[in-house]
């Protein structure tokens, strides 16, 4: 066991700390309540009243120049042009989180499409899409799920036909977050109807202003973060908008899906939320008694703290396995989505319980604590327990790939 990163990294940590100090308390222009909620989700919080104001894309530029984001993405595509260094990434994440300095933009484009294009895209596609995406000028949405293709995603039916050098697309997607703000969609489309279901899918890039696209909002239970349904009626895009070859879309999509799952429950964010909860329990009272002084509440808090500490230590072990080849972490990575999302849901739920009636207040109500973020995040994480591969699907993956248990036998269609 050696928990030191070494002198080089401690110097790097000092640089990051200095940067965080300089930018502590920055806020974003035209901040809305939605952004406060997204800060609650990732456990950060930009100060609301601040003299240092930047736009999100200016902040993005500052972070790229320092190499704090887009670190390993080549300069020619708009990245920092450094080497992948997961210890540095960890230090950046930890120090930003401690200082509550907001990180870079996330979203489907940056988190999923950029790594996909780097692996599978043509040179033209890399040149055209990566830079504006990294800089927050091109927002993407993901067109994967369909009403009849949820957990069984590969049964998707949105159809793409190549006609006169163009893909003509018809069908429907669902659970499409940010569709209404997006310039582009990366979409899974069935282009080879005769092929087996996994090899008949292609990965196609669709400008959202193409005629024939209709977006209908699909409001979720938080009434805040919005999904959409997206309908395609003879939507026509050029043939070169396909990424990789015809029929390779399933492999393309799967190569980055694991990345999304891991990122759904960042242990730094969970630790920050635990600290927020602890402080709240020291401040709020019932009959003049602090919440943390009530033994049953305190015991539940300690239980959650134990789980958070376990997942923090686990993330260090995973980090170690990435820099020490040969270190066996068995199921280490596979469990992250399942364990992380359930833990956040439990933590936010505890905050609601200790607040009692106050915990049910929402939106702009008087007496709201922490902007109502506990209620919002509690519900939002139920969405994450279901989304990104339901936690039941995660258990299938863990038992089949992790524990080597057999797959469920195929059932022939009941008549």
């Amino acid at each position: 066991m050696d928990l030191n990163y070494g002198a080089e990294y401690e110097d790097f940590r000092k640089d990051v700390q200095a940067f965080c100090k300089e930018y502590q308390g920055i806020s974003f222009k035209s901040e809305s309540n939605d952004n406060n909620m997204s800060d609650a989700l990732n456990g950060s919080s930009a100060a609301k009243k601040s003299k240092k104001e930047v736009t999100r894309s200016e902040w993005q530029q500052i972070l790229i120049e320092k190499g704090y984001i887009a670190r390993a993405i080549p300069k020619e595509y708009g990245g920092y042009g450094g080497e992948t260094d997961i210890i540095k990434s960890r230090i950046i994440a930890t120090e930003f989180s401690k200082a509550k300095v907001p990180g870079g933009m996330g979203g489907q484009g940056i988190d999923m499409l950029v790594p996909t294009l780097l692996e599978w895209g043509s040179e033209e596609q890399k040149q055209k899409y990566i830079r504006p995406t990294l800089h927050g000028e091109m927002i993407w949405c993901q067109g994967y799920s369909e009403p009849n293709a949820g957990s069984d995603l590969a049964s998707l039916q949105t159809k793409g036909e190549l006609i006169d050098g163009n893909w003509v697309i018809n069908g429907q997607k669902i659970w499409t977050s940010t569709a209404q703000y997006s310039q582009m969609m990366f979409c899974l489309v069935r282009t080879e109807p005769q092929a087996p279901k996994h090899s008949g899918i292609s990965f196609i890039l669709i400008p959202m202003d193409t005629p024939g696209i209709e977006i209908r909002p699909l409001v979720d239970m938080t009434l805040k973060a919005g999904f959409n349904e997206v309908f395609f009626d003879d939507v026509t895009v050029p043939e070169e908008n396909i990424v990789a070859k015809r029929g390779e879309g399933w492999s393309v999509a799967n190569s980055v899906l694991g990345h999304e799952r891991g990122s759904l429950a960042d242990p730094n964010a969970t630790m920050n939320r635990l600290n927020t909860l602890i402080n709240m329990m020291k401040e709020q009272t019932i009959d003049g008694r602090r919440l943390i002084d009530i033994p049953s509440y305190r015991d539940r808090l300690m239980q959650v703290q134990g789980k958070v500490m376990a997942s923090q230590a686990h993330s260090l072990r995973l980090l170690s396995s990435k820099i020490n080849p040969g270190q066996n972490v068995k199921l280490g990575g596979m469990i992250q989505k399942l364990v992380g999302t359930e833990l956040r849901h439990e933590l936010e739920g505890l905050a609601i319980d200790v607040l009692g009636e106050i915990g049910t207040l929402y939106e702009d109500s008087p007496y709201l604590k922490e902007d109502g973020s506990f209620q919002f995040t509690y519900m939002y994480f139920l969405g994450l327990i279901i989304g990104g591969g339901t936690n039941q699907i995660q258990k299938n993956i863990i038992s089949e790939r992790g524990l080597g248990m057999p797959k469920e036998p195929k059932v022939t269609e009941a008549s």
Partner: protein
Amino acid sequence: MFFGLSEEQEQFQDYVKKFLADNVTVNEIRKIANGEDEALAKEIYSGLINLGINALLVPEEHGGLGADLLSAVAVAQGLGSGVGPIPFAGAYVMAPIAINLAGSDEQKGKYLPQIVSNETKFGVGLSEYVAAREDAGIDLSAGKANGKALFVIDGDEADYFLLANKGGVLFLVDAKDKGIEITKLTSVDKTRSYLELNLKNVSAEILPESESNPEIAKKVLDAGRIIFAADSLGASESMIEKAVSYAKERKQFNRVIGSFQAVKHMCAEMASDLEPCYAMLWQAAHSFDHEPDEARLQACQAKSHISEVAKMVSKKATEVHGGMGFTDLLGLHYWFKRIGLNRQLLGGPELIREEAAEIQGFNQ
């Protein structure tokens, strides 16, 4: 940066696991648990001592291996996975740590080498220091100990007992002292011994540093808790392996039951809750020696959290085995009971979580 057991520590653990796998099947465990074969019990005990598990935590200057607690954790995981029916947490972890931290130079020079040679064996009774039941407890005055110590561990063949009063003063008593009455208690876990001591005017040999520094008793307690957590983790790992392999073989409805999602999901839940416990345990052991500010909280949380996960595993793994899991024939219950005893020793989860809150100044 490396987070995990070192190659040496893994190797040590593998030796322990291999020894138990080769020599202690369920039949042997049953014989020992029922007290039917004392020669066998001694043979297993000395086999494990030959691996050097007694010398791990004794400093090199006293002839030991001078290892850190993480190495002892590696061994304890191995012992738990095979429900090793021998003394460890008290005799070879808490006792050497207590003597080394609180003993005089003379006491260290006398007892530590005897732990290495295994000439002198220590039982340990700190239950009353943690939480006294049945009005037990020991008074210490003018060098004499009076009172009752319950739930003394590793004491079957002990030459001395390491005890504490409520204030955390640690002391040794000679098992041959005429004032000691020893009664065996029977717990569900028959793989380890459990004693009651009644003391009348027994000469107490105080470990002097513990009188001036009450933190030492807590340190000894932390070590014991981490080791019981490690034992439960090893036992849980083993129960999951058994459940998974049973589910891959047992057939019902013309399918192996491991192909049913109801069964698979139980296995996935056990595995995914247990997995982060490895890192939590190792970090707590590492902090015990190297990060004093974090150590107490991590020891408390590791013991309580791992006890909770292990309890869940012991239940679900038994259920996966169906009716067979409930039988003595299969013997899965030895692991179930081992986890059950570990959970309560040196404080159950609720008591320890209260202590964790106190350490952080939460309950004013």
